[in-house]
């Protein structure tokens, strides 16, 4: 009896603590950052004796968008393909386990190592230079296992009889995948891509050697470097007191973007399909 009650209390306390911390962080950041937010902050470039003290973060917002979208495209396509392969095509569980092991390894690589790899392989060896594409490649590798796991889970939840019905009509796996399976989980895929995007947007290490810079304009192509929100935030804090207000403002914008995206992803994931 006592033991059960203690366990319960422990669970509640843990949950309360975690929830409390999360809410506190959000309130803290929003309270500190809200003051810096205005149209100028959102729509202008950083300026000032200490960079970022004045002006805004517009190039960083656009840069982050570019990094994230490119990473989602580069990481999402192989992620969905891998999930389809594991669930529909691979017929041997032993081989499936090998793929799963590899994915887990990738998920475990520290993101700074991915950054280093992208730097030495793409930026130096292939000589594409420091650019969005190089950074996004590193980010893509980082979010690939994350997206794959979610897509795979949703593919496995498709009613087996529906897929079997398609095979039983003499339709191939490919036809079944493209006409039944993928449309069926379309919303889960979108939701997985959005969450993967959030993950990529918050990551700094893969950017620092490869394509993220302290100052630049709004990027015009994928082959030039760009500013990014988390990197900008890091630099603002590193410069100390004069730019600290702007740092909170930047954090505010990032958290807002991520909150909204998460809400969108949840909304998409929940809405039942094809009713």
């Amino acid at each position, binding site marked *: 009896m006592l033991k059960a009650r203690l366990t319960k209390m422990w669970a509640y306390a843990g949950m309360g603590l975690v929830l409390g911390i999360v809410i506190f962080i959000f309130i803290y950041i929003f309270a500190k950052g809200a003051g810096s937010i205005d149209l100028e902050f959102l729509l202008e470039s950083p300026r000032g004796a200490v960079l970022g003290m004045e002006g805004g973060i517009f190039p960083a917002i656009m840069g982050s968008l570019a990094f994230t979208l490119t990473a989602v495209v580069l990481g999402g396509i192989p992620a969905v393909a891998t999930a389809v392969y594991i669930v529909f095509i691979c017929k*041997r*569980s032993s081989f499936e386990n090998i793929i799963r092991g590899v994915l887990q390894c990738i998920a475990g690589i520290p993101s700074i190592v991915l950054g280093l790899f992208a730097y030495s392989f793409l930026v130096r060896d292939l000589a594409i230079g420091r650019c969005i594409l190089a950074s996004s490649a590193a980010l893509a590798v980082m979010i690939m296992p994350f997206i794959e796991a979610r897509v795979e889970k949703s593919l496995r939840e498709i009613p087996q009889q529906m897929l079997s*019905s398609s095979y*039983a*009509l003499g*339709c191939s796996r490919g036809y079944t995948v493209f006409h*039944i399976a993928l449309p069926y989980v379309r919303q889960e895929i979108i939701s997985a891509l959005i969450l993967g995007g959030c993950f990529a947007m918050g990551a700094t290490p893969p950017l620092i050697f490869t394509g993220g810079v302290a100052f630049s304009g709004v990027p015009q192509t994928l082959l030039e470097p760009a500013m990014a929100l988390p990197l900008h935030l890091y630099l603002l804090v590193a410069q100390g007191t004069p730019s600290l207000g702007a740092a909170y403002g930047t954090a505010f914008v990032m958290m807002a973007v991520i909150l909204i995206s998460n809400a969108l992803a949840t909304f998409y994931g929940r809405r039942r399909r094809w009713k």
Partner: protein
Amino acid sequence: MEMILRLEKVSAYYGKKSALKEVSMSVPKKQITAIIGPSGCGKSTLLRCINSLLSEEKDASYTGDIFLGEKNTRDIEGDELRRRIGMVFQTPSPFPFSVYKNMTYAPKYNGVHSKKELDRIAVEKLKMTGLFDEVSAELDKSALKLSGGQQQRLCIARALTVDPEILMLDEPCSALDIKSSAIIEKMLAELKKTYTIIIVTHNLAQAKRIADRTVFMYDGHVIEEGPTDEIFGNPKKEETKDFLSGVFG
């Protein structure tokens, strides 16, 4: 009596676990063959061997020979085999799109694209299952909005869109009420003029009503097969007698 399908010593495995043990049986053309037996005895597995759906499954396999007409099914491409041997499952599983799209899904895969031809197939097969009069006004409505019985008849009609020679049904009525089951039974009696039908059923009375031939399975073996009257009226094996008198199952 012409046999359209012959199984010779078919064994099936899920991993190392054996689910069918040297099953031999045959299926007469344009008749209804019922497969009965307690659950877990391998009825569904048997159907999945016949249309080779089993080899699409992870870690599952089967041995032995199955002849469709004169041809060993191992010499027929899986997709082609499944086109020739249709299958309907236990829970009605219409694709989650419109009734019409359900009916054109497989013909389109087979390269039929003219609207006229697709319409013809859809109407003809819906009529065969008696569904046409009920849904003709709402072919564009989601198939998921139909009642359970209608959904199952849609699945049967959908299986017919590729003109199979054999139609296999795996406990097609077990999720349906008595009235819907009766409609399906009547329909099957009609369909056997055109198709060979194999039906797995839990419902012994149903087997007795509609089947020309009955196969009794137990623990992965075919214990007894023969004309329905004989199996029910004069079973030869102890297991069959026990099963029919409700000792197990």
